[in-house]
């Protein structure tokens, strides 16, 4: 199936994007440029999307907009909550209780991770083929991976 997906136009685009993402992501920390690192993340999201669409094309699956599985619905709800928490943590005034800031920041992390996991379960295990779920899963999973990676490659920042 992977060979068939790579033979399609979308598959080749996904491969090229993945290769670019690896290069840009590795270059970012090497030259201490965080924007380049984030650009690598954005390229990885585009690659994941193109790749999953290529696989759907090969399997001749009909794409829907809205999720059809319970995991897909949970992914969307958790993602909305995670982004709301992230927005709140960014716009909280500096003068508020530091414990509140820490709790809201931790809440973003503990909402983001299960959102990515439920999206992956929906797409990989329950064969969810919703454009919305594929897009949000690619975004949340790559976001979680780059978040974790940044903790190591930009240590102390």
């Amino acid at each position: 199936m992977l060979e068939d997906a790579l033979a399609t136009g979308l598959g080749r685009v996904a491969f090229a994007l993945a290769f670019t993402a690896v290069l840009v992501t590795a270059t970012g920390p090497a030259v201490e440029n965080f924007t380049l690192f984030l650009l690598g993340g954005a390229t990885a999201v585009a690659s994941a999307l193109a790749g999953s669409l290529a696989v759907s094309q090969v399997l001749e699956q009909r794409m829907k907009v809205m999720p059809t599985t319970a995991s897909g619905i949970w992914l969307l709800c958790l993602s909305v909550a995670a982004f709301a928490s992230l927005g709140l943590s960014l716009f909280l005034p500096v003068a508020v209780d530091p414990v509140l800031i820490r709790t809201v920041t931790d809440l973003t992390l503990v909402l983001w991770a299960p959102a990515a996991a439920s999206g992956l379960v929906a797409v990989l295990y329950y064969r969810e083929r919703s454009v919305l779920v594929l897009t949000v899963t690619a975004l949340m999973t790559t976001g979680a991976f780059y978040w974790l990676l940044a903790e190591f490659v930009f240590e102390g920042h």
Partner: protein
Amino acid sequence: MATAIKPHTGIGRWAVLFGGLLLVELLAATAIGMAYEPGRGIADFVLPYGHAWGATAAVAMVLGLIGLLHYAERSVTNIVAMILGFLVLAMILLPPTYY
């Protein structure tokens, strides 16, 4: 209906996998922490480094909950993983009044 030990759905297996990972993380942290600072309890090592296993705990809890609510996953290991995730999350997110 007899309650199974092992999960029978895909999401249940994922929840148990993350629950196991969480347990390993907690035990490793406690073992390493107690080797360096003997005499202190598990909470002293679990709470200050909540970022490290908060994500694993949240995944175990949410996947366990989805399995329980939507996929009739009522295996013992799934419920244990869910409760463990919930307890660790509660420890991390509640304000650290003991400091």
